[in-house]
């Protein structure tokens, strides 16, 4: 018989390294053609730093996203980034980029001010120009300003920025500390179908609501949420490096023996993003890279319980475990 069940799980997740102490530096350089280089030691591993960080620089500089080059490939010329982990990049590297870009923009303001007949603080960077606030007709293309700076004033139009958090050590007696920059929030419901004859659990539906503070790139944020959800479901139903834990015997050696979710394992997925801004995050953004894999596995366990009335509290929920649990339930019932 096929039985359906629904399971709820909620989650929170901190942005940044557990004990703080991490930081990222960034350099933003304006070139004579009005485009910019963002130079930063942040690794792109699929999370989208290469896209959201240039988006941030572009926003501050008032230029197009396409006009920002992302340069992140070596430790000689790219400034320090702690790394792409701990859901920290959008927040930490993002803030460093904002500072660096603001800093570079300030230099543009100072170069342009005399020509525009205004004080630097009365200028803004919009649509590829530096212009006087409230009199948009008084404007100079950024390229022209940068060229003037470089060729006439010998001003290197470059901005730097650093953002980090102080280290916070847990109190040895109480564990008290200040471990987080901000928290992101999520609620997830998963629906499963359990085949009571074969024990196979199929995830058929996944609905999530994620608070990302601010989605800098909504489509990419959503993709990351959905990718994480699939990874979480894969953990819940398929993956185990020690099938005979704690014995290390019969460890899987290949991706044929160690199954991860494929296109055939994915349910109907719907994701809603909500935005409760972090006061310090870039435009309010929070880190969600990791947490997206967290709520699905308990939600699957809860859904299986809802479907067949047994608790399986050691994932992955293999057909074998389901059948054994059903057998025990039956025995206990008799």
């Amino acid at each position, binding site marked *: 018989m096929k039985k359906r069940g629904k399971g709820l799980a909620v989650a929170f997740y901190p942005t940044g390294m557990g004990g703080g102490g991490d930081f990222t530096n960034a350099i933003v350089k304006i070139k004579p053609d009005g485009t910019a280089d963002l130079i930063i030691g942040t690794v792109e*591993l*699929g*999370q*989208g730093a290469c896209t959201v960080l240039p988006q941030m620089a572009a926003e501050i500089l008032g230029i197009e996203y396409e006009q920002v080059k992302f340069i992140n490939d070596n430790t000689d010329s790219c400034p320090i980034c702690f790394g792409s982990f701990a859901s920290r990049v959008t927040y930490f590297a993002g803030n460093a980029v904002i500072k660096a870009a603001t800093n570079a923009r300030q230099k543009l303001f100072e170069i342009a001010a005399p020509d525009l007949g205004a004080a630097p603080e009365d200028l803004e960077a919009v649509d590829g120009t530096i212009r006087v606030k409230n009199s948009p007709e008084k404007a100079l293309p950024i390229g022209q300003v940068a060229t003037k700076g470089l060729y006439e004033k010998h001003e290197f139009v470059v901005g730097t920025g650093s953002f980090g958090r102080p280290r916070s050590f847990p109190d040895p007696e109480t564990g008290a500390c200040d471990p987080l920059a901000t928290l992101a929030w999520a609620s997830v419901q998963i629906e499963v179908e359990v085949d009571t004859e074969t024990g196979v659990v199929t995830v058929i539906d996944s609905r999530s609501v994620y608070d990302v503070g601010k989605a800098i790139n909504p*489509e*990419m944020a959503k*993709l*990351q949420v*959905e*990718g*994480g*959800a*699939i*990874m979480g479901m*894969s953990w819940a139903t398929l993956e185990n490096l020690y099938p005979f834990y704690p014995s290390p015997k019969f460890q899987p050696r*290949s*991706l*044929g023996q160690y199954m*991860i*979710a*494929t*296109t*055939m394992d*994915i349910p109907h*997925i719907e994701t809603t993003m909500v935005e409760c801004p972090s006061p310090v995050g870039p435009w309010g953004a929070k880190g969600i890279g990791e947490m997206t894999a967290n709520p699905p596995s308990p939600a699957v366990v809860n859904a299986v319980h809802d479907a067949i009335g047994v608790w399986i509290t050691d994932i992955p929920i293999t057909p074998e475990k389901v059948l054994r649990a059903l057998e025990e339930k039956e025995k206990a019932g008799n």
Partner: protein
Amino acid sequence: MVLLEISVNGKGCRVLVDATTSLLTVLREQLHITGPKIGCETGDCGACSVLIDGKLRRACLTNAMSVNGSEITTVEGIGGSGGLHALQKSFYEHHASQCGYCTPGMIVASKALLDNNPTPTELEIKEALSGNLCRCASYVNIIKAVKSAALKTSNGGGEP
């Protein structure tokens, strides 16, 4: 060493290969065509997917000499001279990659699907790509991308 003659993405190649070498090794290490990726070398991940005379194959499991004289197409050759193939455009527009490591294989496998079935259903797309693992699990967008490319190509959107 034996002489292997294949055409890769429309270009004739003659290379001396070890009789036991896989097509993947020849493509990558000898011809430096690096679109096909190494993910497992055991046929499990699909990152090395290529078309051999139009058929979808795992380059890691294919002995190079066994395809002597064949036409090989990798992701680099999918677009032909006309720029991006509809699938490539669609993957790009639909944000269908995260780390991108599975993408070349995904695109080649999708091309093989659309060549045989220009208007696949969602299930057919899932089935056709079920041998291509994406650990970033960009699956939702990948499926969307293939669907949209299929619509475009089958509506006479032009191929490539």
